[in-house]
């Protein structure tokens, strides 16, 4: 399996390591491909969009001409900024901000406030208990009919999954790449 990691801006190094650890746990052969240009998108089985700044990642995707190529990829996993990039509706976007708009969810940027409101906690999820870090995190404030919630925090959805035809989208508002392989294992198994 070839999994691309979008290496333009953000914590892509952590995602690479967690993806390899998840593949090891599943005993699945997996190649991690750093994706920096549109040529790197060819032949990928999945793509991970890391945490970072969604304004920066959006700009760089457009400048490098990667938007069309990404929408063809069979499964995509976005954390924090990556979840914002996937969402069809974004609250708190700056004028002219670019998104991929692939997953039927609505998100609100910086929903908890500035860095002093960032936090970590033990979170119960459909995949098991995880340590979750929410860093200037968004919230998911709307979900389309086919979207399945995977985790809640105080009644709010913080992780969700959608299947559209033969395409799969997974979004987390926190950063599983910093603390657990569970979400990456789930992602690797999608569509199998």
């Amino acid at each position: 399996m070839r999994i691309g990691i979008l290496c333009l801006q953000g914590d892509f190094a952590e995602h690479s390591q967690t993806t390899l650890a998840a593949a090891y746990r599943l005993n699945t052969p997996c190649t991690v491909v750093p994706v920096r240009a549109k040529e790197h998108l060819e032949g990928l089985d999945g793509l991970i969009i890391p945490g970072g700044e969604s304004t920066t990642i959006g700009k760089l995707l457009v400048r490098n001409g990667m938007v069309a190529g990404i929408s063809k990829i069979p499964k995509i996993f976005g954390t924090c900024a990556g979840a914002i990039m996937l969402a069809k509706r974004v609250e708190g976007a700056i004028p002219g901000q670019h998104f991929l708009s692939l997953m039927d969810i609505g998100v609100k940027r910086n929903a908890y406030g500035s860095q002093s409101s960032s936090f970590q906690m033990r979170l119960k999820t459909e995949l098991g208990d995880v340590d979750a870090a929410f860093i200037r995190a968004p919230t998911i404030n709307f979900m389309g009919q086919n979207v399945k919630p995977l985790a809640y925090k105080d009644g709010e959805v913080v992780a969700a999954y959608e299947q559209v035809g033969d395409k799969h989208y997974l979004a987390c508002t926190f950063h599983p790449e910093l603390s657990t392989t569970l979400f990456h294992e789930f992602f690797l198994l999608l569509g199998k």
Partner: protein
Amino acid sequence: MAKFMAKKKPSKQKPAPRVPMHRAAAQPMREQPTSPVFGSFEVKSGLAQMLKGGVIMDVVNSAQARIAEDAGACAVMALERVPSDIRKEGGVARMSDPTMIKDIISAVSIPVMAKCRIGHFAEAQILQALNVDFIDESEVLTPADEQFHINKHNFTVPFVCGARNLGEALRRIHEGAAMMRTKGEAGTGNIVEAVRHIRSINSSIASLANKRNIEYANLAKEMRVPYELVITTAKLGRLPVVNFAAGGIATPADASLCMQLGCDGVFVGSGIFKSSDPERRAEAIVNAVANYADANVLASVSEGLGEPMHSLDIKDIPPNQRLSHRGV
């Protein structure tokens, strides 16, 4: 004897996966309570990890902050005077006016950093109360304490500090810094000092490999940091927190050079808004950092950027006016 020669039976239990991070707390996160914990080291260094591969730009007003955000900056540094003006005007440089910092915070959606003087924890408390996302305890401002840096563990907001060598970097990390940057020589548009600092830290870390315990203990004593921190750094083969380049970056090529030398991202101070075409130069440097290893992209973004900032040779700066010697 045969008993000892027998192959070890492979255990059914899979070993724990490699820990997916490279920072000081390189153990898996401690099990957390189910209620939120604010301002832990994981959360503070986590923001630094999200800034990687990005450009942090100095801005002096909300209009510049918007230009920076539009160009793709991953954060802005709010300050009253950029380093080259501080250098020119002299006098005591202090924390910026809160009105101006609040203006910038409300103007942009990306993280906002602000500078306080070395050791001036009251300024840092004010910046934390203003809800800035990151504090730079910076040698660019006039130091307030010649003996102590701020105890950064006392704050819920993360700190970034400058360093010229491994000892300085590890002392700042021990004091609680969640992110490091090279000091370089701010406000000069001259990359040579930043390169010197990156090279120095890289070669010190490389020389940590394959030493005996007693040597690590001696190094810890020399650098005045805990033994465990030296061991962590040796094991990781890099600084245990995110490390950016800063001080003298003026062109996309400068930014690429620092990234290729192993930095996680760059700060650009006077380099953008003291150049003739800030919008284009800002965008070019963002592109250069994201595509730092692709010379074709670098060539195309470097075209026609106009005049860079007015720059200085380090030899022409008297040693007592060099900012990087402050706060070691």
